[in-house]
C-alpha cells in the first residue's frame, strides 16, 4: 500500500463533527488546518510501520486518508496496483480490503461481539451463514475472546471491546490493517492485553500501519518508525535510530519526553 503526495485540509477542529454547511463555508475560515501536507509513504506486504508524533499533528487524518474514510484533497493512494483516489473506483470494495481499528473503538452497539465481526462477512463478503460464523469465531479466537462472543459492547471492558474491534478488522483477511491509536483511549492496565493481541498479529506477518505511542511495543515489532509533526513526515527510520539518536531536533525532543514519561510510569 502506498500514499503519494497526499494532502488533506479542513477548516474546523474536528472534521468528524463537521456538517455539510461548515464544509461549504470553510473557505472563509482563516485558520484552516493542514493536517496532511505532501505525505508519501510505502508499506509492503508483511511490513509493520508505526507513526508517532504530537497530538493534533494530523496522524489520524492521514491514516483515515489511507483507508479512504477521509478523501484526500490531492495525491494518490494505492492498494496493490489499484489507485483508490482515481475517479470511479468502488470505494466500498476498496475499504473491504483494508482493516481499520479506531481509537474510540466504534463497535456496532446493537450487536454482540460475534455480530460485530460477522456483519461484514455476511453483507460485504456475502458468505453463507455457517461460514461467516465460523470465520467470525476464528477471528475472535485469535484475539482470545471466545468467552465473551455473546456480550454487547457496553458489557465488555475497554480492552475486550478493542480486541473485538481488531477481530472485526482482521476477519475479512484484509491486505493491510490500519490502527489509529488502538490503546490510547484505554485505561493503562487494559493496554497490555491489546498490545499482546497486536504482538500476536505481528508474529503472523500481518501488514500493519499503526499510529501509537507504545514505545516498547514499537521497538519490538516495528520495522520502521515515522515521526509525524505539523502535517508531515519529519523523520523516518528504524526504531534503533529513534531510541539512540534521532537526526532532527524535533524528534529528539519528542523522544526524550516520551521516554521520560514511560520511565516515570
Amino acid at each position, binding site marked *: 500500500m502506498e500514499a503519494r503526495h497526499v494532502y488533506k485540509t479542513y477548516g474546523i477542529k474536528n472534521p468528524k463533527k463537521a456538517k455539510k454547511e461548515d464544509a461549504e463555508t470553510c473557505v472563509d475560515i482563516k485558520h484552516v488546518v493542514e493536517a496532511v501536507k505532501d505525505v508519501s509513504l510505502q508499506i509492503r506486504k508483511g511490513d509493520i510501520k508505526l507513526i508517532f508524533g504530537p497530538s493534533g499533528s494530523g496522524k489520524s487524518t492521514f491514516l483515515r486518508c489511507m483507508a479512504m474514510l477521509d478523501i484526500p484533497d490531492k495525491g494518490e493512494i494505492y492498494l496493490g496496483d489499484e489507485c483508490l483516489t482515481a475517479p470511479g473506483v468502488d470505494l466500498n470494495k476498496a475499504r473491504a480490503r483494508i482493516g481499520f481499528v*479506531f481509537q474510540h473503538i466504534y463497535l456496532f452497539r446493537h450487536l454482540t461481539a460475534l455480530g460485530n465481526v460477522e456483519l461484514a462477512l455476511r453483507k460485504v463478503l456475502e458468505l453463507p451463514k455457517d461460514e461467516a460464523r465460523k470465520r467470525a469465531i476464528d477471528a475472535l479466537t485469535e484475539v482470545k475472546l471466545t468467552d465473551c462472543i455473546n456480550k454487547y459492547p*457496553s458489557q465488555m471492558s475497554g480492552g475486550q471491546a478493542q480486541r473485538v474491534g481488531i477481530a472485526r478488522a482482521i476477519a475479512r483477511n484484509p491486505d493491510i490493517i490500519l490502527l489509529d491509536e488502538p490503546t490510547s483511549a484505554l485505561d493503562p492496565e487494559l493496554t497490555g492485553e491489546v498490545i499482546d493481541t497486536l504482538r500476536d498479529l505481528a508474529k503472523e506477518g500481518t501488514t500493519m500501519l499503526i499510529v501509537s505511542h507504545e514505545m516498547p511495543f514499537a521497538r519490538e515489532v516495528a520495522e520502521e518508525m515515522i515521526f509525524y509533526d505539523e502535517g508531515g513526515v519529519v523523520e523516518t527510520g528504524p526504531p534503533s535510530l529513534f531510541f539512540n539518536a534521532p537526526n532532527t531536533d524535533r524528534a529528539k525532543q519528542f523522544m526524550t519526553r516520551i521516554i521520560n514519561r514511560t520511565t516515570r510510569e
Partner: protein
Amino acid sequence: MFEFLLNPMYQGWIVQGLLLTVEITLFGVLLGLGLGTLLAIGDIYGKKPVRAAIAVYVEIFRGSPLFVQLFLAVYTVPTILNIQIDHAIMAFVVFGLNSAGYQKGYVKGAMETILDDQMQAGLSVGMSKIQTLRYVILPQTYRIVIPSWTNEFCSLTKSTATLGYLGFLDLVGAGLAIKGSNYEILPVWIIIAAIYFVWITCFTKLMDILYEKKRIPGVELIMQ
C-alpha cells in the same frame, strides 16, 4: 343507562368504528414511520434543494390543522382532479403524510445521536452507506425511537376522532350515530372514551414491552 350496548345495530357500529380507527391509526403511523425515515435520511444527506423541500413539507403538515388537511384531501382534491377515490384511502394517506412530518423529527434526532461513529465503523468494514444505514444505523434508531413513536401513536389515535365529523364511521362516528338515534349523550360518550382508553393503554403497554425487549444492553434511553 348503558342499555344501548345491547342493541345489535349499535354494537355493529361500535365494532366497525373501532376497526376503522385502529386501521387508520396503525396504517397512518406505519406510513408515517417509513416516510419519516426517508425524510430524515434526505434531510441529513440531501443537497440543499432536497432539504428545503423537506422543510417546506414538514412545515405544511405541522403548521396546519389536521382537520383542514383531511377536509381538503377527502372532499376538495378529488373534486378538483375529478377522480373517484375512496374517502377512507384519502384519510389513510393524510394521516400517514401528517405523521411523517412529526416522525421525521424523531427519526432524525435519534439518527444524529449515533450517526457519526457508527457510519465510520460501517464504512471501515467495507459496507456501503446504504448498507450501513440498513444494518447499523436504522436498527439502533428504531430502538431509540420507540418511546416517541408510542407518543405519536397515542396522539394520532385521538386525532382520528376528527373523522367522525367528516362523515366516517370511526369510533366517534359510531358515537354520533348512536347519539343521533337514541338521544342519550353522556353514556354514549363515556363508552366511546372508554374504548379509546382501553385500546391506547393496551397498545402503549405492548410498545413498552417491545422497547424493553429490544433495548440494547447498556445503552440508555436518549431523552427526546
